[in-house]
């Protein structure tokens, strides 16, 4: 590479070669994406105006009936509420935990690498399998949690049968699984802050938590933006863990938009309605993700 670079130095005074547009280089990639992502997505928008059941050859056009159903279906709002909880709730906890871990691991201590490895390990595990692992802990019969509660003299709880607890259990597992990513991004951010900033603050008499809010947090804002956006997108799309642990139940109490769509299509053969939920879900996720991106970008410039 260096040879080539050196060789090209000589060309610089010459007239630059007119660059070819090269657009055909992205044709294979773009074609794949078009056929398997964009085209089905557009076609899905058409299906929302039909009553297609997902397998028969015939269907009728029903206009906006599916969307009317969607807005009057109480399940829709339950599912939206859960999805927001998975998106925003997990994002909040992942970031709090990730930031605290990063602040700790940025100090001088032993076992730094080991702790980092252990916290990060769940990131590479299939979320489906992660759901099963937590089933061993939360299950009523012989679950690890009930053993602990029993030792404390508290009766066994059937956590997975509780419609109120289930969405929070899923938030907790998602937080556990992906807090490692937030930790790593924050740790990289912390390590890029020059040490003398803190020394200068100390000379100015700043004490306690003050340096954190005046130096650390403002300089960490780009990392905050990345983490927030990544975690919101991931949380809003949540599927595998829910599928493994509660299958959206009991009832629809822990259903996310992704698992709800799966149920509608495969279990209830309601493809037209499933597609309408899909379009609705994309709109919500796009709006929230972009708003979060814009909001945190603005905060970044405000604080710097």
């Amino acid at each position, binding site marked *: 590479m260096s040879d080539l670079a050196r060789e090209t130095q000589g060309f610089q005074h010459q007239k630059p070669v007119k660059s070819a547009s090269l657009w055909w280089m992205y044709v*294979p990639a773009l074609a794949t994406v078009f056929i398997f992502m964009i085209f089905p997505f557009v076609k899905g928008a058409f299906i929302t105006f039909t009553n297609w059941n997902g397998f028969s050859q015939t269907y009728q056009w029903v206009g906006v009936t599916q969307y009317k159903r969607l807005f009057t279906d109480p399940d829709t709002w339950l599912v939206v509420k859960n999805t927001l909880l998975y998106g925003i709730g997990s994002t909040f906890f992942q970031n709090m935990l990730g930031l605290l871990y990063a602040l700790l691991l940025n100090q001088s201590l032993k076992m730094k690498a080991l702790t980092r490895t*252990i916290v990060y390990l769940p990131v590479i595990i299939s979320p489906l399998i992660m759901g099963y692992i937590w089933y061993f802990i939360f299950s009523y019969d012989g679950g690890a949690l009930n053993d602990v509660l029993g030792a404390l003299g508290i009766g066994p709880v059937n956590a997975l049968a509780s419609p109120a607890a289930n969405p929070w259990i899923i938030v907790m597992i998602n937080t556990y699984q992906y807090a490692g990513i937030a930790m790593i991004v924050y740790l990289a951010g912390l390590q890029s802050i020059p040490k003398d900033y803190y020394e200068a603050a100390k000379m100015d008499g700043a004490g306690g938590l003050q340096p954190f809010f005046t130096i650390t947090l403002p300089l960490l804002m780009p990392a905050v933006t990345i983490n927030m956006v990544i975690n919101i997108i991931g949380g809003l799309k949540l599927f595998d863990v829910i599928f493994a642990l509660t299958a959206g139940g009991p009832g629809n109490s822990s259903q996310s938009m992704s698992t709800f769509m799966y149920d509608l299509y495969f279990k209830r053969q309601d493809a037209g309605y499933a597609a309408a939920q899909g379009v609705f879900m994309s709109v919500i996720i796009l709006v929230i993700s972009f708003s979060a991106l814009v909001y945190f970008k603005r905060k970044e410039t405000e604080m710097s």
Partner: protein
Amino acid sequence: MKTARMRIFTLLAAVISCIHIVPFYILLTTSLKAKGDYSSKWSLPSAFSFQNFREAWERASLGQSFLNTIIITAVSAALLIFMGSLAAYPLARRNTKLNKIVFGLLISIMIIPPLTSMVPLYKMVADAGLINTHAAAILINTAAYMPLTVFLYSGFIRSSIPKELEEAARMDGAGLIRTFYTIVFPLLKPITATVCIISCVFIWNDYQFAIFFLQDQKVQTLTVAMAGFFGENANNLHLVAAAAIMAMLPMVVLFLALQKYFISGLSSGAVKG
């Protein structure tokens, strides 16, 4: 003073590690206990038995699932690397209107959940006769992670590949593909490693696509096999735990061996497709 602080921090780190390792510990003790052993999941087994692993391997037909998962993961990763790097080059180098539109399109696809296009996609794949084929899973995984791949490659090309290279190599039509793969591609090694790790982890662990397109036992991947096996053995979780450990072992071993690359790679591509 200094050492006291260090001790407290080390203690804190130890507590955090212990809490985070709990699920893995429970998984391990469960997998090592014999059927009908109802002792607490916290206690170690009185006698270590690897019988569960042998039985789970056979009954969940994990051998076949491993093979399927390896084929699908490897081919998809190769396609992502070859097509994604090729596509990223003009997008990173040519600031035309068309390229901006294409790039914006790819970014917005990264945000949309793949499940939203699943209903028509399933019908399309079924009409093409590709349900229960490796090809379907490979093509769909490739398409799903292509935007992220192009995004990572173009970022790298913008920041660390000198523009002059192109003039020297005369990327102007004839023999361009060869020029690209022999001159530019080798320089992309660091980001290729990242893309490779990300796509391997995501596709190895994929369940959202696999559950739709790979129901047949002959083609099913590890996650689909695991889901079925869990359903059949809800009253013998020891077997499920053993199967889970085997299914995740390759990624765990790779992670521990190449930790540095995994952490930087996965974190840069954390916008999961």
